[in-house]
């Protein structure tokens, strides 16, 4: 890092009349460096020491590629599922008054608090071929536990509160009058939802998707119990990292971690750009 600023007309934009800008910015930077930047750059540093060819060999390995595909694929599907049903849950909690609403509202937060391993074991018990739900699905030829489908189920569980909690406050702010205005202009209930309400919620929904997706990519505890962890089939990238660590193969572990980091960063960046775009449009 070079420190060119400070000279020749370069200045911080006068932020506001509230004092303490220098102090708080300094604190934020130091804090982020300590908590996020140093560990992550350590990761990049270690994998860089590996050399390009070795790095590429590890990343392009079929097992690694499959693990990455499963991790990102299941996280994407789970986030998409959560967007649909999380939005519906938020809608019900915001729009309707029914007995037990507060309890349902509190229940949404449980995946935040529950140790994810507990969730994984509980889901496995339910969805195993002889479990309560699993035995009902078995005759239909649907296997959930020990397949990628099981991973999706676990990630849906983990990601739900992220969508609900980001969409809910925005939904609460929706002005009843806007709906009434649309109705007075002749819009049907369906048109009001698709043309008026949904576009207003889009930024929040995109955020919820990003959070649920990011959480899903990094999820470990619940998935390893339900996934079955068959290489090439239901092995997620975080698990592969742990496996490599247990083999004392630190280079391979950091290489997979680095590529996950890069992919996650790119995806979150894209989501962020989409969000900025929709914010600008929908103001």
């Amino acid at each position, binding site marked *: 890092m070079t420190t060119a600023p400070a000279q020749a007309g370069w200045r911080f934009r006068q932020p506001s009349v509230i004092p303490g800008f220098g102090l708080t910015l300094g604190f934020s930077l130091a804090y982020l460096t300590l908590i996020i930047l140093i560990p992550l750059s350590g990761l990049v540093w270690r994998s860089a020491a590996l050399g390009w060819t070795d790095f590429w060999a590890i990343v392009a390995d079929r097992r690694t590629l499959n693990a990455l595909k499963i991790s990102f694929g299941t996280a994407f599907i789970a986030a998409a599922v959560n967007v649909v049903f999380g939005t519906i849950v938020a809608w019900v909690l915001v729009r309707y008054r029914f007995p037990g609403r507060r309890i349902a509202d509190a229940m949404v937060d449980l995946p935040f608090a529950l140790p994810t391993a507990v969730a994984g074991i509980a889901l496995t018990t339910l969805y195993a071929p002889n479990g309560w739900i699993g035995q009902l699905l078995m005759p239909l030829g649907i296997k959930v536990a020990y397949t990628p489908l099981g991973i999706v189920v676990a990630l849906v569980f983990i990601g739900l509160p992220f969508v609900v909690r980001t969409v809910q406050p925005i939904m609460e702010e929706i*002005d009843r009058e*806007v709906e*009434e205005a649309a*109705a*007075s202009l002749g819009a*049907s209930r369906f*048109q009001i939802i698709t043309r008026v309400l949904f576009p207003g919620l889009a930024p929040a929904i995109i955020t919820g998707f990003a959070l649920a997706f990011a959480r899903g990519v990094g999820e470990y505890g619940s998935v390893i119990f339900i996934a079955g962890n068959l290489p090439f089939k239901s092995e997620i990238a975080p698990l592969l990292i742990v496996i490599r660590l247990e083999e004392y193969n630190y280079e391979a572990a950091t290489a997979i971690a680095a590529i996950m980091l890069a992919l996650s960063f790119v995806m979150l960046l894209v989501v962020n750009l989409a969000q900025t775009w929709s914010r600008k449009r929908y103001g």
Partner: protein
Amino acid sequence: MEVRVVNVRKEFELFPALHDVSLDIRSGELIALLGPSGSGKTTLLRLIAGLERPTKGAIFFGDEDASQKSIQERNVGFVFQHYALFRHMTVADNIGFGLKVRHGAARPSAQEIRRRASELLDLVQLSGLEKRYPAQLSGGQRQRVALARAMAIEPKVLLLDEPFGALDAQVRRELRRWLREIHDATGHTTVFVTHDQEEALELADRVVVMSQGRIEQVGSADEIYDIPNSPFVYNFVGESSSLPVKVEGGELWIADRPIGLSAPQGAPSGEALLYFRPHDVELLEGCSGCIAGTVAASRRVAGTRRVELEVGGERQRVEIELPVDHPAAQKSRVAFRPRRWKLFPAA
């Protein structure tokens, strides 16, 4: 389109918001619902729109019973106090919304919708702002867009709920004049709700004064102001003064003195309240048959002087208005007689 409200009653969870209200609105009329908050004026407007259903009674659009129709079917233009524009749509899309959501043959082509939108923007004097988003407009501009949006569907009735309530005083005055011009140009039957009496009297062909879920009086600005038919209208619209009087032998008395006004036909003897406008009085020299009082306070209010008098043995206070340079304001004793007045039973 003529609108008739017939014996409408509306309850919200058993709390009555409107008691048996009837009102005839003539086609092409600009009518104001005026009243304090909680008087039921907004409820009445929402009932006409179809945003609420009456508990009892019916609402007719022309000869058609509209009470059982949904708001979508009624084809009314509704303008909200806080604009209720669609934030994620441009001005042009907002205005075209009502046409775009139509089905089949009723829906104009995209090109036609664009043309209508820019035509309406011209009408509300916002040409060239098609591509803006509501967040980029001022309050007055947003309300104009809201009105254009409501007019785009060629509504049978235009309903405005405190349309200028969220705007500052100057913009409000400007838009008031502008709304009158638009109304005269387009001829929509228009009902608007306001708690601002100046707005109602200046803008409307007829004013409906409401209080506690009932209609107190319906009439032109002149009728409402000059011949109020209840103490409420006297108090709520314009300034008013009141004095307790006694009716005896066909004359009005304060304490033991007749005040030179003869009681109207059929007024029962006994206690009553005399209402009049502070500016509508005639000053008298000397006094045989007048209201006389000592000056207790005198204030300059814009172009007039407002004098507070103590009248009668019980020292009732009453306000009258005098010209600024009138010598009576300095005198300790002033005698007057209301020119136009009305007697109401003592509460």
